[in-house]
């Protein structure tokens, strides 16, 4: 059974997957049928006002950026509905709140019955935006790199003296928490720290900040790096932080859960699988408009896995094209090795591990019998 924490809103799974709630797709996939992704992770732009030290978007530049306009995203959402996408997370490789299409996207998704989640630095997430989008969202997660203003500004912006960005983010997070409570909204609010070994002094302050803000959870995860270690992450150093991470988790209260993504941290950057099955269930789209199986392949380096661009072609046509399935089959073939040919532990990691274990017979995925957890359509 999946690892989970119980929040006031329900069971929350952050350090595992929810694929066992989508057995219809698993069975169809295993039978060799063409399945639609349950979840799409995407961005509405590649732009961002932050300059986070841990940002994987620095490694995700494709050949060309296409401007994503409102009519593109309305068509995209209609195509998602048509093929059977159930949840869309606005995370990927850009700060989607900067896009003019951001609010229309969320409103249109809600109209189409698609669940929406979003990760943001929160700098442009003022009261007006909160009020427009929070009622339509399943979850909203603020990236908070540290628990203290100076370190936050140093890691996410130009330097420790620029604490105005911390102040702005905290003000907006507090408003979102207040608005959720006032209107009894179902949206889950969280904050996330992307842990690089040199940020370990901020683990406990981050947990304290989560409690102070009154968010539903504060999660700490590993930092992804590409296969050539462009960010220089030393995964062996995470082990020395285990006691600090355990101490942070122990600070959880009934209102705010402190969660550590142990599974990814303990994998030390190397997955158990060589074939990469997750993208068929959890597809990623770049804020440049590029459709590729995973964000791991957005950079021009992985051009052979580039499938299309949804600002030039309708997504439904890309999804139905032979090149979509050719790319998906390539990463499921012996020509591809997930351990050496892509960055570490992608968003599809939990799902890919489960599917690989399932196909190898080491751990079969079985239909979940219990009540659906929160955010079941975000794998």
């Amino acid at each position, binding site marked *: 059974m999946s690892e989970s924490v119980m929040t006031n809103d329900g069971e929350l799974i952050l350090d595992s997957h929810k694929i066992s709630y989508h057995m219809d797709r698993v069975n*169809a*996939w295993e*039978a*060799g*049928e*063409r*399945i639609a992704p349950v979840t799409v992770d995407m961005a509405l732009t*590649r*732009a*961002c*006002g*932050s*300059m*986070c*030290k841990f940002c994987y*978007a*620095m*490694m*995700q*530049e*494709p*050949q*060309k950026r296409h401007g994503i306009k409102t009519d593109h995203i309305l068509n995209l959402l209609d195509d998602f509905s048509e093929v059977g996408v159930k949840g869309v997370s606005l995370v990927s490789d850009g700060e989607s709140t900067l896009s003019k299409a951001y609010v229309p996207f969320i409103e249109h998704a809600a109209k189409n019955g698609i669940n929406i989640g979003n990760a943001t630095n929160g700098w442009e997430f003022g009261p007006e935006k909160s009020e427009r989008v929070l009622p339509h969202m399943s979850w909203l997660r603020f990236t908070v790199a540290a628990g203290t203003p100076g370190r936050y500004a140093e890691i996410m912006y*130009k330097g420790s003296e620029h604490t105005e960005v911390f102040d702005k983010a905290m003000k907006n997070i507090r408003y979102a928490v207040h608005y959720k409570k006032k209107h009894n909204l179902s949206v889950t609010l969280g904050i996330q720290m992307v842990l690089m070994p040199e940020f370990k002094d901020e683990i406990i302050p981050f947990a304290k900040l989560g409690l102070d803000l009154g968010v539903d959870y504060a999660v700490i995860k590993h930092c992804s790096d590409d296969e*050539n*270690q*462009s*960010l220089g992450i030393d995964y062996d150093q995470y082990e020395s932080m285990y006691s600090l991470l355990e101490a942070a988790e122990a600070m959880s209260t009934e209102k705010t859960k402190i969660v550590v993504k142990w599974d990814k941290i303990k994998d030390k950057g190397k997955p158990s699988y060589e*074939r990469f*099955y997750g993208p*068929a269930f959890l597809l990623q789209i770049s804020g440049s*408009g590029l*459709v590729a199986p995973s964000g791991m392949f957005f*950079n*021009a*380096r*992985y*051009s*052979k*896995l*580039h*499938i*299309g*661009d949804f600002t*030039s*072609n309708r997504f439904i046509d890309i999804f139905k094209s032979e*090149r979509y*399935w*050719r*790319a*998906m089959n*390539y990463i*499921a*073939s*012996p*020509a*591809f090795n997930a351990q050496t*040919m892509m960055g570490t532990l992608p968003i599809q990691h939990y799902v890919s591990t489960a599917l*690989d274990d399932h196909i*190898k017979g080491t751990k079969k995925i079985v239909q979940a019998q219990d009540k659906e957890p929160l955010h079941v359509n975000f794998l």
Partner: protein
Amino acid sequence: MKNGINTEFASHVSLLPSLAWKNLSEQDRILKVESVMKGFTNSEVIQVKKAYSDGQVTISLNNAMNASERGSFLLDFEELLKDNLDNGITIWHEAIGDKNSLRNLRGIEVVSIEEAL
């Protein structure tokens, strides 16, 4: 209809180049790739940059193919090299660095295969 994803390779060993490929000099490996490339459609747009002993071949495309063209084009090219030279060859395009001016202030560069080796 069974035209989705083939899962029969889950436990297969990932392809690696032969000893013969590994024992060639880089110059010879590049020459071999260029020789096979001559028979490939639209080959004039491809420039071979590096050809490593571990089977990785770095190329660049001289003209800007759109996203719906370049994937299939390069997979076709890789298949040709696998069929004619060595099954362990894998094609990568030259990496492109982040165009975000703010993030660029961090000074992070996408590390090339050569730098990583």
